[in-house]
């Protein structure tokens, strides 16, 4: 993992200078840029904003969007909404775990995929669905999984 140049994030702090309630937007933008929020970054945010490390961790661990682990090249979101769930989302999830060798929230060793669970994606008519990056794959069966991930 390449070292992160912290001073390269300074433009984000400048943008929010003097504004209130900036912790969440700052973390958000940093994650967009770096991809995740490792502890070095949290320390830098703490120093720059004068916010305690415990508070930063509280926020990061509260919002599932934030992650302290680097994300893979592609993010797979497995929909666990009601419709997908009753149509077998669990089977899809288990198959993905098997194929990728990781649990939800983890990233494959080759850094290719990060797998997460999501709430309803609003495409219930295609249930069960997964979303890889911006692309929705619907009407799934567990057998189709290897074929789909091989495309990436």
């Amino acid at each position: 993992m390449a070292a992160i140049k912290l001073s390269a994030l300074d433009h984000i702090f400048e943008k929010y200078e003097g504004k209130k309630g900036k912790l969440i937007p700052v973390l958000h933008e940093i994650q967009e840029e770096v991809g995740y929020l490792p502890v070095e970054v949290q320390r830098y945010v703490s120093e720059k904003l004068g916010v305690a490390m415990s508070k930063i961790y509280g926020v990061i661990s509260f919002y599932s969007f934030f992650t302290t682990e680097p994300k893979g090249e592609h993010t797979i979101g497995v929909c666990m909404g009601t419709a997908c769930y009753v149509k077998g989302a669990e089977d899809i999830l288990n198959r993905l775990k098997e194929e990728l060798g990781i649990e939800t929230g983890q990233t494959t060793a080759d850094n290719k995929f990060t797998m997460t669970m999501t709430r309803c994606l609003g495409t219930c008519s295609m249930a069960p669905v997964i979303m890889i990056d911006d692309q929705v794959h619907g009407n799934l069966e567990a057998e189709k999984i290897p074929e789909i991930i091989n495309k990436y």
Partner: protein
Amino acid sequence: MEITIDKQKIEVEKGKTVLEAAEENGIAIPTLCHSPFLEDVGACRMCLIEDLADGKLKTSCTTEVKDGMEVLTKSKRVEDSRRTILDLLISDHPLDCMTCEADGSCTLQDLAYQYGIERSSYGTKSEPRFKVERDNEFIELDPDKCILCGKCIRVDQDIQCSDAIDFVERGFQTKVGAASDEGLGGEDSTCVFCGQCVELCPTGALSYIPSQKKGREYNFEKTVTTCPYCGVGCQLELKTKDRKVIEVGSVYREGTPNPYGEACVKGRFGYDFINHPDRLKKPLIKRNGKFEEAEWEEALSLVAEKLTEIKDEYGGRALAGLSSAKCTNEENYLMQKFMRAVIGTNSVDHCARLCHASTVAGLVKAFGSGAMTNSISEIEGSDLIFVIGSNPTENHPVIGSKMKKAHKNRTKLIVADPRQIELSGLAEVAVQQQPGTDVALLNGLMHVIIEEGLADQEFIAERTENYEYLASVVEDYTPEKVAEITGVEAAKIKKAARLFAEADKAAIYFAMGITQHRTGTDNVLSVANLALLTGNVGRESTGVNPLRGQNNVQGACDLGALSNVYPGYQSVEDPEIKEKFARAWETEELSAEVGLTVVEIFKQAGEDIRGLYIIGENPVISDPDQRHIEEALDSLDFLVVEDIFLTETAQFADVVLPAACFAEKEGSFTNTERRIQKVNKAIGPPGEARADWKIISEISTRMGYQMNYDSPADIMAEIAEVTPIYGGIYADRLGDQGLQWPCKDREDPGTKFLHQGEFARGKGKFHPVTYIPPAEEVDDEYDYIMMTGRMLYHFHTGTMTRNSEPIDKHEPDAYLEINKKDAKKLRIKEGDRVRVTSRRGEVETNVRIGDRVQPGQIFMPFHYAESPANRLTNPVLDKDAKIPELKVTAVKIEKV
């Protein structure tokens, strides 16, 4: 206004909550997340009440009273809903009361008992959902027992102001956690182990590791007393069982220095020394170079005989005494009385000589009184606090927290310290002046204030003298010139000066960084000048506030354990005063000559000083130039040491007398804000150890001067007779909050802040001073400046904290702090061993790298006997106060 609670009409003030109104009228409402001094959040829903106006159930802790309001606190709806909440809480709580540390002091348990909930109707928690966190020596967190009331988080963030913990995770996984979820001892955790979270936890989720399995609340006897560490004077509760101190609890009492139960890690966890197996239990007499246990009778007679022998042969002035800032007021009074009235010398001094002698000297000159002008509770009322040469968050942690709290609310902060201390990070202006350049810095600030017309002319005209002289001296100290001397940018000097002068109520706080210089008195005078110039004395939340470092260093000074004054700062050179004491003490031995001070006593040892009586001091570790101190102790004809351990100094003694510690005796300590507070006996002393006041009385009586006191209260009554500032201090008046001197007589309620309307000396006097550089500067060989000081976890020479297991385990090793640039230059890594050498000696220690110190400087704590910083320090003295220059030593550093 009038409201009706449970059909009972009550009068209540506007702005109160229903909960407060109920409590005031003896109506009990159960709570889990409420604390009277924390912001209410209405989280636990136990305090629900039924509002008859709209029929709604409301949390009484967050509902303000309204005129005519009618509420029910025990209606069926209310009680059913409380029962449901408890039922839900208990469904996720282990039913392990029989092994839980909190059994007997658990609000959840009490409420389950009250509401008859044996087990939850929603099922029982059979498997833990979380890991128990105990990655440190002090506090365990078991999230499975946590009910998420958030009291721990609120006390941490709003009272202690450490921001160490917060809610982490979400939903059912929510728990209390520290940074990165790595526990309170984690790398990024800011926890300082004050224990206030444990005290407020309503269940067993937070507990003290050192006292686990050693007893529960109902097994303990409890004694409220005064903390034996720094000068804040926190009130603590010693919980004892079988003559052992098992735990230290908080005391919540208005009007004390720590009304919200505040404490620091030393007060909370530094009590193992009390029951340590190495405590002295019998007198020791050295025979043929070896200590042998002896009976009291023999030891006391030997001491009396030897002291009499030296007195008879060389005169009383061949003897000297070191009293102790750890001992009570009564004991310090007796010690100086013994040295003066029985031995006939004024050579009685104590460690204040090494810490605030220059404060007393300087402030007496400027104001007429040498103590902290204002009170700890006034910190939050200041508009601005200027901290110079003091590191409160480590050395006076409870005061440090109050400053952080004040800053959080609205108070501005200026910090001047050669090191980047914790408060520097919060300050509006933080400067790192070169060590020993404080006079220049302060003169620079005053230059700007005068030049920009920001001085308080009205105050200067009415209440001060000598202003013109001051103005003429500081005229030379332009920001540019001061920048050159101090290394602080001119712009920052100007900014700090304006901030300070423009604040309505500005208070200055200082400590060893100001006093421990050969220009210590000058430094203090400069501080006083700045306060006078801006009219910041004699009003609430302002003032010149020296923070005293020992539990009773203020009292030891007040009661005359100083070589130049009798109790109450009455000069030994004043014939009328001498006459007064001669009459009161019925003695003809009093000397009219100022005695020797600590450092002078050691310089004269073996020559003019033949015998020394030391109580509770450890000069081998605490005094400058260790090798010289050891030689001095060796050269004495007779040395008697009275202490709780066989300290490095006691090793040199001919007779060692075992003393009782603070937990084992009665008396009083005077804290940094002049508050005389009770010391109460919790347990008996170990073995045959005795209270110092008893030992001194015995020796005195054996030397033919009867001292027959029944109790410390008797001694205090005698003190009141001869000490005007303590004239109204009697043991029976101290009550729960103590009294602040000056306190003239039995009717006097004491004095919160000094110099209101008039200074103790009449007018406040400006004493302009010019900058004199420190005695030692860097040269080619000794190319670093070393500063010494304390750190949070240890105290002074370590006699107490290094004998307290959890603390010494947490911080076991001596170290020096060095800047990362210097570390690179010297090619040393974190943890490397280095040799530090000064012109007087060398020590080895471990390296800590960072940016707390500036390049070219190092910092070494002086607590560690294995790496004694004071083997290196310079005994050059301030000419007025005779305080040594402990803060500036030229050293060289080599990798071992």
